[in-house]
């Protein structure tokens, strides 16, 4: 029983990180119809933001978080202006290539400055965690789960109950219609990039104390997050969350009960199953080609 609960806790914890990155994928996809392959690098930039502010400059942890989030917002805006905006009227493919290029660029800039050696980031809380008998709940994983839940709730309130949120939703549903209704589409897309970059940054900040900080951090998470978005139904917000947590739990249980070396395969076996049997994902609706 303890083993079961321990695996479940760990699976949900790492799944929450996948969910946060998946959420960034989904929001940008909804706003622009493009998959942002640099989403994982947003997490890396966030994690290095914390290393620079707290480890290098010695600022308090919360100040580091605030500065990093501000930097992420700016980064999201710059990313939009340099990677998406110039190509906004082109087809899907050039934009995708552009995000892949941006991802390689970001990785190498960080590699150039920091090198391949991993850096360390202290956990958010001083306490190591809670022991319940043989069960150990890592404080950082508890933080991750709590922050993810809070963000999901906030995001729900924002999109469903504020005018700005509704405008952003309108843009994601139909850009031309939204534009005819006087919504500034370009600004809404800008806001989406800013918010997605901050989400990715938060994922990086949260996961850095556990996985250490290196350029490889983004790739590890982004691939799983991408699988999560497909399982959840591409473009579906609750789907991304459920998909992320499902992948975390499935791979953790699969690793323990079936095989550790094939741990990464489980996420993709589930992904293949979905692509074959239910390509629209858990929550997606079957969309026929727009006329």
């Amino acid at each position, binding site marked *: 029983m303890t083993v079961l609960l321990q695996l479940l806790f760990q699976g949900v914890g790492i799944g929450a990180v996948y969910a946060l990155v998946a959420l960034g994928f989904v929001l940008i996809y909804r706003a622009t119809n493009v998959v942002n392959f640099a989403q994982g690098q947003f997490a890396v930039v966030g994690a290095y933001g914390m290393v620079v502010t707290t480890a290098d400059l010695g600022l308090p942890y919360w100040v580091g978080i605030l500065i990093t989030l501000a930097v992420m917002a700016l980064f999201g805006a710059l990313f939009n202006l340099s990677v998406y905006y110039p190509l906004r009227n082109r087809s899907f493919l050039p934009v995708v290539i552009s995000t892949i290029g941006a991802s390689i660029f970001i990785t190498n800039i960080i590699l150039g400055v920091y090198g391949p050696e*991993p850096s360390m980031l202290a956990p958010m809380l001083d306490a190591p965690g809670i022991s319940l008998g043989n069960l150990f709940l890592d404080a950082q994983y508890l933080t991750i789960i709590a922050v993810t839940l809070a963000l999901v709730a906030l995001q729900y309130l924002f999109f469903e109950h504020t005018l700005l949120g509704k405008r952003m939703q309108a843009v994601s549903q139909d850009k031309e219609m939204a534009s005819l209704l006087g919504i500034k589409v370009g600004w809404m897309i800008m806001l989406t990039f800013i918010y997605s970059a901050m989400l990715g940054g938060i994922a990086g900040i949260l996961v850095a104390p556990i996985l250490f900080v290196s350029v490889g951090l983004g790739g590890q998470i982004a691939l799983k997050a991408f699988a999560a978005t497909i399982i959840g139904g591409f473009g579906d917000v609750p789907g991304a969350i459920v998909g992320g947590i499902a992948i975390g739990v499935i791979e953790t249980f699969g690793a323990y009960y079936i095989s550790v*070396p094939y741990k990464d395969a489980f996420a993709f076996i589930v992904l293949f199953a979905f692509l074959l049997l239910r390509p629209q994902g858990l929550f997606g609706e079957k969309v026929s080609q727009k006329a």
Partner: protein
Amino acid sequence: MAAMNRPSVRLGVRAAALAAVLASFAAAPVRAEDLKLGMVVPVTGAAAESGRFAQWGAQLAAEEVNAAGGVLGRKLVLVTEDDQTSNPGGVAAFNRLASDASIVAFLGSIRSTQTQAMDPDVRRVAKPVFFGGTDPELTRSGDPWLFRCRPNDAYSAKVIAAFGVGELKLKKWAVVYSTDAFGSNGHKHLVEELKAAGAEVVTEQGYANQATDFTPVVLAIKGSPADVIGSYFTFEQDLGIFARQLRQLGVRTPWVGSPSIVATTALRLSGPALFGTYGIADFNADSSPEARAFADAYKAAHKAGADNFSSWTYDAVKLAARAINTAKSTDPKAVREAILAIRDYKGVEGTYNFDANGDGLHGYNIVKNDNGKVVFIKHIEFAP
């Protein structure tokens, strides 16, 4: 180490390194009468930092050789080419050096895959190449020109088993290993050696590199009757995550790991989670008077601690000089015979006795992580 990570400091270090390289061009032109050793070394790419250590080690040895009268009365000089931390880069660098017919012998790579990539050209050029990669197969493929200056991985498994079973008297082993080439070879050899030593392997846990979570591995070890862990981790990050979760879930069994467990990066990332663990190391400053003298001279020259990146190149340059002096000739065949005849040469990595395959070393040091400090326990040597 923390200071090394700051961009400004790193930038300063790089600028200084560049200045040093430029100065060396100006100060020491290679003259026709000098005796040249070619050196393939990463100057750019991911391993550039360790490449600098390799050059420092080789340079230190060359200075000592020249202070003692040089080689065949001539001055020993190093000619370097950048391998860009890649296999094609290594091959290209070796061939550029090999096109200079006056180069007598070479220092190759510390990476096994690069050595493998260079192997066909090494056979064609037919001059001695010292290298540091530890894949046992490299010297078993019949290339007569490869000479290894580090113990190969067949010995690492032997030493882990000999120490864990023979000294710690622990018989129920959990083996944790990376599923890449290095880790799965280590795993294979370790399981064989443990069984030969009369121990029982109660659980074998492989993992793919860049893992995000080791809970399933730790729970499997916790649920097994293992009283000791033997490990082959390729990357210090994976080792760090595993060590942290192992301690969190209350596993306190002794642990004997492959060299990554005492790597500087692992000590920095894992901190107290690795206290009390044992590791094997091919270079340790306290393992012999020669190693101590080298570490002190290195520290005095470069304000940095010596490690195996610099120790093997130091030994390689000394061995090359010794063999050429003994052969009284730069003829490749004569030099090769002289290298193979080297017996009981006390280098800083260990005592060299070259076998017919070209393996110079046949043992490892056992070290312990004593509250973050790596302490020498003993050296375990096997017959060649």
